[in-house]
């Protein structure tokens, strides 16, 4: 089954939770404006190849974020001299990713706490 709604897959092909892809894209864009291809490459590399972004999910996700006003896009020329559409975080997007990341971290902490004693036993 193809994954349409913005999912990223781990190497074990397990779907991440919804919104994960958006969060990672926004987080990546926080440091630097990027175009789609670079975004996919960046996420793959920075996760040590653990996560793989499907192009099939990337572009619909970018469209959703454009619509939500979290990013804006501009056509330009890349370092490799190629016509690319670069995505840039808006102030609104910056606020959103802040919120998302902190709530995600809280969730992760919770999950870790639950899992830790189970391992100890």
């Amino acid at each position, binding site marked *: 089954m193809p994954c*349409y709604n913005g999912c990223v897959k781990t190497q074990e092909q397990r779907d991440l939770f919804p919104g994960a892809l958006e969060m990672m894209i926004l987080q990546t864009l926080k440091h630097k404006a990027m175009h*789609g291809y670079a975004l996919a490459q960046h996420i793959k590399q920075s996760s040590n190849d653990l996560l793989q972004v499907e192009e*099939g999910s990337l*572009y619909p996700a970018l469209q959703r974020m454009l*619509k939500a006003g979290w990013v804006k896009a501009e056509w330009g020329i890349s370092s490799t001299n190629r016509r690319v*559409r670069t995505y840039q975080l808006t102030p609104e997007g910056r606020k959103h990713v802040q919120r998302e990341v902190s709530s995600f971290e809280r969730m992760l902490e919770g999950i870790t706490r639950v899992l830790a004693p189970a391992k100890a036993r």
Partner: protein
Amino acid sequence: MTWLTRILSRRRELNNLSEEMAEHLQEKVEELVAGGMSQAEAENAARREFGNFLLIEERGREVWQWKTLEAILRDTKYALRQLRRNPGFSLAVLLTLTLAIGANTAVFSVVNGLMLRPLPYPEANRLAAVMRHRGKVADKSFFDEDEAVDGETLKLIGDNVPTVQAASYSFASSGVNLQTETAVRYIQNQRVSAGYFEVLGIRPILGRTFTSEEDRPHGPKAVLLSFELWRSTFGSDRNILGKVIALKGEPQVVVGVLPANTHVNAPADLWTPLQPSPTGEGGGENYHVVARLKEGSTWDQVNAQLAVLKPPSFIQFAKDNPEKEEFLVSHPLQQALASQAHTPMVILMAAVGFILLIASANLAGLMLVRVMRRSGELATRLALGATPASILRQLMMEPLILALAGGVAGVAMAEAGMKLLTSLLPDSMMPVGGLSIDGTVLMFALAASICACLLIGILPALEIRKVELRPSMNFLARGNADATRQRTRQALTAAEVMLTVVLLSGSGLLIRTLVHLQTLPPGFDATNVMTAQLSLDDARYHNAPAFQRLLQQSQGAMKRIPGVESAAVGLSLPFERGLNDGFSMVEGPDAGKSYMSSSVYVTPEYFRVLRIPLLAGRAFTDGDTATSEPVAIVNESFAKRFFHTTDVVGRHIRLGKPTAVIVGVVGDVTKQPGLFQTAPLSTEITYYFPAAQVPGPFLGLLHVWFQPSWVVRTQGPVNGLTEAMQKAMAEADPSLPFAGFHRLDELQAEALRKQRFEVLLLSALAGLALLLSLVGIYGLVSNMVVQRTREIGIRMALGATVRRAMVEIGVSGMIAVGLGLAGGLGLAAVSLRLIKSELYGVKAYDPLTFAAVLGLLVLAAALSVFAPTLRIARIDPASTLRAE
């Protein structure tokens, strides 16, 4: 971004997306080539990894759309295109649905009017009818309820139930004569008590309602006009109040005018005070009670107060029937008014429901074929990434559009159907305020449409789950899936046949009932008899000599009409209801006991005009007068019931005060029973007494309730007979118009109005069901022929005969029919119990009816199976093989 700029920038954004994705792909390819792949390899790899380019583009695009709305719009356009492409199919479906939904809506409008729509009175839920409840003390489930009470009971209710405001009325309206400046009109008068309109919440548009003074026996004569009469006869005269009109042969004062459409249970042109009393008509159960719950009271309190009331008649009943009890109880007015209509409504509603089911089954079969034809296309679309949900939505769009259009057209048809129903409905089934399409009826039509849409769409929808990609795209491997679909259609057809069996047998039973009632031995000879009724509720004829003079002169004049053999007058006729009156036995072991019997005053020639056979003794003669010995003639049933013999000439019974001697015994005639309403027509214990011996005071009472009939026998058809009869009457009294002229078969038809209504409607529906089922069977078989053309062609090429192929296909059609018949008989056995109370002279399980239904269905089904198999003969093996 506002939604407006979003729409404007949408196209640009979508172009951006396509371009961007193309660039992405390009970049990937370049990278792979740089990594050492060949250009072609790299392009393939990149595409594989990227996934379905179009699909991704579409998901991206959807972000900007009102996804569902636009998809629905697209599906609607697609469905409309499909429907336009097959105008024949669309029209057939639309017509079927219009008929089915229209019939359902029209019948439902009656149910709505009778049971759901509030009565057209303020706070109608606070209105109730008070009834007499008689039942076995031990067995609460068996009881008999009657709405009419006597004068004593009425007085008790008025005095002892402070929780309600009660009023009373005469149930039926009766004909009276209104003298206007130009003519005398026969109009309908209903009698109501003071406070009646206040209880209902109806205010006069002019003047006032009746005072309690006017409602007392022999009180001042007062009249309330209906809006319609005020407009038509009195020219909407605003100064009408206080004017004197000549009604019932005496001056009466108009005190008010009521708003339009005021009547409750019977059409009325005007109202006069009921003037109830414990004696006279009040000695019998002749009053109806309507009550309005007072503020702060509950129905439980009302019923508790009613239950303890014990009028003398109840005490007498308890004495005569120790195992039974009688008490008063209130029922919601709406329920009480609709009580007669309940069973026929359930039957009709079930029948139209069946029609909707059968029609839907037919259409589901047609839809199924269309989906089957498209299975290749559907499989391709699934393969290209369409989701099952989106295909389902598209498939359901066609039935939805058709059903909604059918619903709209159905409501329009129901409008016409309601006009027809209004003219056909018997009074007991006519809702107060008539039939109308209101919100509830529209909701019902919508629900019926959606129901039809689901029924039509559900099977094809289930089928697409079974669409398998490979076999659907490979035409050679499709046989198996088609076979299961054929079975589904066979099952649908069987279901249609099943429901049709029930409808046909139901209407068959009702037809048998009607035939039974119409062919009951009448007990008289109706040929060459003309009858005419008029109102003698007239102050001038409340004394015996005037009444006698009128009878003498009018009969004499009628006998002088050329061609007329004999003429007579009677209070009631065969096929009509008679007066219920009490009498007591004066001889034998039952001496002193009182009984009720039907009774008719007649003039001497009554039996001769109607040719009612005289079994013993003599008929009345001109010698039986007010001053001679009181005499009576009884019918055969009466003699057998009370004397256990027909040899009763010379025995005595007491009618009112005088003791009358029985001078003759006549045969029973068929009439509407008034004592025990066990059937619409039957014989009944009856005694006859001479019109010449009716005491004066009794005349007024009789003629309030009954309009006597003049009957003449002619030698053959007489031209201008009715005009001549009216002229003869005018010789005796020019101010007495006949209400109408009827042959006796018309009286019979009127008595069987409800039965004829039921037969007409149910037969029409059963016929429609049969037609739909035959179309369904035909469709099933002809589709089988088309499906198997290839197979049959091959087999014929290998030597099979046409006859064999026809039999084989025909048999699978007949199997469906056979299953339907078997199921139908089972369903009929369960459901026809419902119809029992409407049947007379035939049992619910009538072998003859069932045999006729089965015979008809088998024959008709065999024809519609056989017709399409004829096409097999035209199959050319060579061309089918070439088509491979």
